[in-house]
C-alpha cells in the first residue's frame, strides 16, 4: 500500500491527459471524465506543484459532480498524503469511512498514513504548516506574475 504513495505517473501519461483536458478547456467544455483523469495523473506526479493543481481540480469535481464523489474523496486524500499533509488526508478518509465504514481500500490507505505519521513524528505537522506557507507563496507568485504581465 505504501507504494501507492511513491508510485509516479509517467511524463507521457501526464502529457496525454493534460492535452485532452486543455483541448476541452479551450472549447469551454470540460467533461468530469477528462478533468478526473488529468487530476488523477497530477496527484501522482513527483512535483508538489502538480499535486496541488490536481487537488484543486478534484476539489472542484467534488463540489460539482455528485456521481464520482467517493473517487474524488479518495484521491484528495492520496494527493494530500503525498504532500505529507497527513492530517488533511485523514480528514478526507474519515469522511469517506462515515459513508462506507468497511471499505478495506480506504482503511488500508489510512493505516499507511498513520504509520507514516508515527515514523515521521512531528515532521508531518510541521510540513503541513509549511504547505500553507507554500500555498500562500503560489498565490503571491500568481499575483506577481499578473503584475509582470501588465508591464
Amino acid at each position, binding site marked *: *500500500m*505504501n*507504494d*501507492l504513495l*511513491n508510485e509516479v*505517473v*509517467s511524463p507521457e*501519461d501526464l502529457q496525454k*491527459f493534460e492535452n485532452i483536458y486543455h483541448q476541452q478547456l479551450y472549447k469551454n467544455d470540460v467533461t468530469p*471524465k477528462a478533468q*478526473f*483523469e488529468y487530476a*488523477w*495523473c497530477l496527484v501522482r506526479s*513527483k*512535483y*508538489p*506543484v502538480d499535486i496541488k493543481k490536481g487537488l484543486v481540480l478534484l476539489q472542484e469535481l467534488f463540489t460539482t459532480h455528485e456521481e*464520482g464523489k*467517493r*473517487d474524488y474523496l*479518495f*484521491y484528495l486524500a492520496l494527493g494530500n498524503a503525498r504532500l505529507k499533509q497527513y492530517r488533511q488526508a485523514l480528514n478526507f478518509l474519515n469522511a469517506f469511512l462515515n459513508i*462506507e465504514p*468497511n*471499505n*478495506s*481500500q480506504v482503511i*488500508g490507505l489510512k493505516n499507511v498514513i498513520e504509520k507514516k505519521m508515527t515514523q515521521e513524528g512531528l515532521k508531518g505537522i510541521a510540513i503541513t504548516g*509549511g504547505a500553507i506557507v*507554500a500555498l500562500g*507563496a*503560489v498565490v*503571491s*507568485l500568481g499575483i*506577481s506574475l499578473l503584475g509582470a504581465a501588465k508591464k
Partner: protein
Amino acid sequence: MSTGQYNYSYIFKYIIIGDMGVGKSCLLHQFTEKKFMADCPHTIGVEFGTRIIEVAGQKIKLQIWDTAGQERFRAVTRSYYRGAAGALMVYDITRRSTYNHLSSWLTDTRTLTNPSTVIFLIGNKCDLEAQRDVTYEEAKQFADENGLMFVEASAKTGQNVEEAFLETARKIYQSIQDGRLDLNAAESGVQHKPSQPGRNTLNNDQQQNRYNKDNCAC
C-alpha cells in the same frame, strides 16, 4: 511490511484486470490475507498488494496492482499495465458478458505489455456451480487458442487462488532461467535484488524540497 523485508531475490510486478464485479479485489485479498472479503465495494482506481512467495528455493516479492473494473477508470489504469511481468485476467463464470469482454482485455494486455508477459486467465466464482453461464470447456479452448494459462477459481473458498498466482510466478521464473526474459530491459516487470532500502524515497524527498525552495522565490 516491516523494514527488514529485503530478504528476497526478485520483485515481480503483476496486474489484475477484467470487468467490474468479477472479483479481482477479492482474489487479491484471498491471496494476500487468506480471507474472503464479503460485500467488496468497487475499487477506486487501483489497489495495491504484496506477498513474498517462494519459487525453486528463491524468495520472490509479488507487487500486485489490482485495477478498478469500472469503465471510467479504464483510460488511466492502462498505464499500470506497463512493465507487468504477469497479468491475471479475470471473468465471472456466472456472467457471460464478463467472458465476452475478454478479447478486449486481451487486446489491451497484448498492446501494453511485453511479449514475455505471462497472461493467466481466471474464471472466478466457481463455487457458484448452479449459476454457471460459461462452461469450463469453452473457456479452456479460448485460453488454448490464445496461449493463456487457465484455471477456474473461487475467491470465496480459496480454491485455485494460490495456484493461479504461484503458477504465474513459476512461468515468469522459468522465462528468466531460459533467458527469454531480459532482466535489464526497463519494462520486463522483474527486478533483481532490490537496491539499498529507502534510497529512492530519500532522493524523492530531496528533490521535492529543492523544488519547494525554487518556488518560494517570491
